[in-house]
């Protein structure tokens, strides 16, 4: 428990320092690291949803739409004629 706490505090120091460059004080390397992390987290969050695939309701919705051409502003020409 004690060890964990002191490790956390160590983390605070590092992270707090990482925050400061944003106001323009430290080098661009830290900034780049933060931006890389932001990009990764953003994509991870997004892909978390993408990976859920297509919920059934949308498969059914489109199947229904396809079977009811009236729901669509059809031009009344049949190209096969």
């Amino acid at each position, binding site marked *: 428990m004690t060890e964990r706490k002191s490790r*956390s*505090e160590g*983390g*605070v120091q590092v*992270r*707090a320092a*990482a*925050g*400061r460059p*944003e106001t323009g004080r430290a080098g661009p390397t830290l*900034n780049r690291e*933060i*931006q890389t*992390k*932001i*990009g990764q*987290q*953003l*994509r*991870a*969050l*997004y*892909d*978390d*949803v*993408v*990976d*859920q*695939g*297509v*919920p059934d*309701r*949308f*498969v059914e*919705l*489109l*199947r229904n*739409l*396809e079977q009811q*051409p009236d*729901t*669509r*502003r*059809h*031009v009344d*020409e*049949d*190209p096969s004629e």
Partner: protein
Amino acid sequence: MSRNTPGRSASTDDASVRDAMLAAVPSLRAFAISLSANVDRADDLVQETLLRAWANLDSFEPGTNMSAWLFTILRNLFRSEYRKRRREVADSDGAYADSMKTQPEQSSKVEFEEFREALAKLPSDQREALVLVGASGFSYEEAAEICGCAVGTIKSRVNRARTRLAELLAIESIEDLGPDRELRAVFTGGGS
């Protein structure tokens, strides 16, 4: 923008249109959730987008980006709904952040939480620009077309979003260490 080519839908192959729409659904949902911060509302938004797209297939130009077209429709739907709500709720971005807090489940993982919260604090125009370019994989040009603004506007919104996120995450990581984080891990990790 100049996509009004009349009389095209007759030759549009319904099955391939359907497949293209289905293929876009997962990323449409991800975009919708990032806009509305609510899975149910996001799915309703996606449903309305598909209905509207199907009804207006005439205005889709075959060969152009179906995904970008659908994103545009979804964004416009969200915006008109958002504007309506804005009249009722004064601080709409604050309301967004609050709605995030009531939605901690989703399929979210603990490590996403602080990022999700930081994202919720961004102004909505910055958030959508960042998501379109940084996660959906659209070019700045495509994102500009989807949002109906200049490319330079998108670029500056994305930059401001990144800067603000960096600030928020650096600050919040201090608060997030300690017992609070462990407590949250218990709650989030405990269920299903």
